[in-house]
């Protein structure tokens, strides 16, 4: 993988590690952005890893653009020798698939969708060759997902499914973006799932909703008191399908300040993962559930 560098005006360097999404490109972008952070380069003001690329914002009054570019290229070649292992977290996210709120919203914007006569889940099941919505939900929730980028808006995670490419779920975005998406909608566009951290515009297919807030600017939510955004790039997410009763109970728990998300520390090795994906994911599931 040859990284392509480009200046984004006089204050940014943009680096495309891979044109296509892959775990290898994501790992490289994560590794280099960590290295840039550790290097504490004078004049660097923002370090942003993304799915298969990254961006560094800098103050050209403090560091010459060409000097920073040279430094990034040096870190880029050093990364080739690194072991693709990260210390990270696995987080369980409960999801009420096929919920009434995203259903109401997707019906309201039906004329902007590829399939005006079905729902987003029915459409996604069909184009992924699955014979029912239930089969689609199983495919979506059985393997874990990597948080490969946080952004678009505050705290929103982009998630990349941890299975071989041929098994990855894909779905196009809406033909025209919606002007509304319920807060905490679980969405999907291209090969990425996401969780909408705030209510607002969106173009991803809508599959369900989580009762678990992931962004709280007021920091009232018990597990967001240390920081207002839950996710960091490199986190691993496992969806847990729940029913309406469990959803309502979780919402009540969140409101009462007693909701405790299931979060475990884990060491992830890309090499071992690639050796046997299903076995490795089963091991991750074991870590999540303390087995």
């Amino acid at each position, binding site marked *: 993988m040859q990284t392509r560098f480009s200046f984004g005006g006089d204050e940014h360097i943009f680096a495309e590690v891979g044109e296509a999404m892959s775990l290898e490109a994501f790992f490289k972008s994560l590794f280099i952005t960590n290295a840039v952070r550790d290097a504490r380069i004078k004049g660097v003001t923002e370090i942003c890893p*993304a*799915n298969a690329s990254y*961006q560094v914002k800098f103050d050209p009054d403090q560091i010459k653009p060409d000097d920073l570019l040279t430094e990034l290229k040096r870190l880029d070649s050093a990364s080739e020798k690194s072991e693709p292992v990260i210390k990270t977290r696995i987080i369980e996210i409960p999801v009420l698939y096929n919920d009434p709120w995203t259903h109401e919203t997707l019906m309201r914007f039906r004329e902007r969708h590829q399939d005006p006569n079905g729902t987003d889940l029915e459409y996604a099941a069909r184009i992924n060759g699955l014979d029912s919505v239930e089969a689609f939900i199983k495919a979506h929730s059985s393997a874990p997902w990597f948080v490969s980028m946080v952004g*678009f*808006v505050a705290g929103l995670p982009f998630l990349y499914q941890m299975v071989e490419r041929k098994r990855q779920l894909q779905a196009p*975005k809406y033909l025209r973006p919606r002007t509304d998406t319920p807060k905490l909608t679980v969405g999907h566009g291209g090969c990425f799932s996401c969780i909408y951290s705030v209510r607002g515009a969106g173009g991803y297919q809508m599959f369900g909703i989580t009762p678990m807030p992931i962004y709280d600017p007021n920091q009232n939510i018990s597990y967001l008191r240390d920081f207002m955004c839950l996710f960091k790039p490199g986190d691993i997410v496992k969806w847990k399908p729940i029913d309406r009763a469990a959803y309502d109970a979780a919402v009540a728990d969140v409101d009462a300040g007693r909701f405790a998300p299931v979060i475990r520390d884990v060491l992830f090795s890309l090499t071992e993962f690639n050796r046997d994906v299903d076995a490795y994911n089963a091991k991750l599931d074991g870590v999540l559930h303390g087995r």
Partner: protein
Amino acid sequence: MAVKVLKPGLATTVQDLGRPGYYHIGIPLSGAMDRHALVAANLLVGNEAGAAVLEAVFMGPELEFTADATVAITGAELPPKLDGEPRETWTSFRVKRGQILSFDFLKQGARGYIAVAGGIDVPVVLGSRSTYALGALGGFKGRKLEAGDELPIGSAAATGKDGRSVARDLRGQPAGMPTELRAMPGLYWHRITEAAGDGFFSDTWKVAPEADRIGYRFKGGKPLEFVPREPPFGAGSDPSNITDACYPYGSIQVPGGTEPIVLHRDAVSGGGYFMVGTVIAADMDLIGQLQPNTPVKFVKVDMNQALAARKSRSELLGKLHNALA
């Protein structure tokens, strides 16, 4: 002391010089769209350069003062009135307790900056008082002002001098028609044909109605023709799609190849549209003062020209500081 909001205007928000350091989790810089005008307003009333002020877009608010104060309005030509009597923009003046500051119709520009000696004293969130409305973060309760809000004002260490003004050549406002925005081609520039690239810089564009703190949309130029490709995995099938990536401030994305969008202070931090380049930092303030329908030309520059423009913008700021020291 406090300022009571009688009428909020269209979208009036508290802003300072922004909140760097959180773009990697989708929290943008925010802060004044016209930073030069914010600094001018603050220096006029004796504040620190980066104190929090009100940014009013297209239409001014109506404000009542609960104590004597010194204020200044800079940026757009949004003519202030004190108890109905006209006052000058770019000039500090005194307001007495109980007086009402209102505004006449916008004459030029887009965003007015209202500084009060002492600064707007809302809580500092992640290092800044700026409002990021999309994330309900910072500013006054994370949102634009509403009638009935009461804005706390910091104690004015400097009492604030009235009758001081900023000379026209130190205001840094857009000049000339069409407005020229200098941009460095790059990022995904290779996705369009050479002819499309030439057309982008030679066409005259107009500011579209969809122009806000997140980004400014432009229309009226020729659609961009793409270099054919096999869509990379994860990018999406449209030729303007990329594997979702970070968006630089000032980056120019062109969804579907038709209407360019320049991201501004409340930028979405990333997404799946290709970008043809980036407006240079020196010209970002100008965008904040463009009204819908304003004709604009993008002017191609390289890094050396961008750095020279940056230097001259910074010298202008230096002169402003000297003039109001």
